């Protein structure tokens, strides 16, 4: 079957099996290997991407559900100035160690930070409840997101192709 959707702000069309996992589509077809497979059964959150602004597990999302959606991956986050600066700060503060959880964690975090004017520890914990990290003990992750929440130039998701920040990036 054929589906059309936007991927990191760019309209795309793919032909494939209806039950193909979004995770495989991203990694194999689009070569966007930032999205990771951890468990492959909806438990770990490593494969988290944003669909119409909501965090979804790409290992459990079949191609048949993608038509007309807006998808956003960690590559989309990195393509924006604020996104890549957030990633730098997140890593510098020890928010990542092995990195397997990181693409999912930073997307959940970026979504939370974009939607929440005043961030706090409990809100961060709720926003990240679906993302398992085995390495960091979460402390450095929470601290990085708390610190980001205190910045005027904190990360903002640019989900739509018309978002000036994303468009600007792509044209340059």
């Amino acid at each position, binding site marked *: 079957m054929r589906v059309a959707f936007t991927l990191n702000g760019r309209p795309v069309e793919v032909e494939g099996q209806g039950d193909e996992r979004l995770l495989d589509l991203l990694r194999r077809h689009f070569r966007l290997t930032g999205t990771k497979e951890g468990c492959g*059964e909806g438990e770990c959150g490593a494969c988290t991407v944003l669909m119409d602004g909501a965090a979804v597990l790409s290992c459990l999302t079949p191609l048949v559900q993608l038509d007309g959606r807006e998808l956003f991956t960690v590559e989309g986050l990195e393509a924006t100035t604020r996104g890549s600066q957030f990633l730098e700060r997140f890593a510098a503060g020890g928010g990542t160690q092995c990195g397997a959880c990181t693409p999912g964690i930073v997307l959940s975090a970026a979504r939370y930070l974009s939607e929440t004017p005043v961030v706090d520890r409990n809100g961060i914990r709720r926003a990240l409840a679906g993302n398992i990290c085995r390495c960091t003990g979460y402390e450095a992750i929470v601290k990085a997101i708390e610190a980001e929440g205190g910045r005027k130039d904190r990360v903002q998701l640019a989900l739509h192709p018309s978002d000036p920040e994303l468009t600007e990036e792509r044209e340059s």
Partner: protein
Amino acid sequence: MLDYLEAGGEAEHHVRHEPPKWQIFDEEHYHGFAYPTYSYAAQVVDAEVDPDTLEVQATRATVVAEVGRIIHEVQCRGQVEGGTLQGLGWALLEEMKVENGHYRNDRMATYIVPTILDAPEMEVELMEAPWEGPPFGAKGVGELPMDGIAPAVCAAVENAVGIAVDRIPATPERILDGADEGWAS
């Protein structure tokens, strides 16, 4: 050196660390200094126990770790924080169950590890006491933070509900067993 490299030369630089002469371990007879020195840590856990369900939530972990020499502070702290949470998983949730040679919980849906909601607030204090043996005096940090957490959790549970748990993970069932077996103090 730079001039040489720019002119297209190749250079190799080798550095080798030799342990002190007396630090010898005989692999064949298992004699000598297998553990010539130790890192040290103190770990304190604050926990809440639900009196009805006996579920345990660790609310705060305080760790002081003496690691010899800190080589990269952010990563060193990360090792201590990560190990502390792994220790907490071991103390409260994680148990590999084997039956007839097969793992019964061989996937993340059945082998439960701590999420961010299980993680306590952590305070980590690193200390240095470099030791002559290893490079730069670094003694090691990876395994250290996992060791004291389970005893600290069990002590916190006993302190909260007066039941001594002698097996981990300290699940509600095991805490209840402890009460049944008359260990309530």
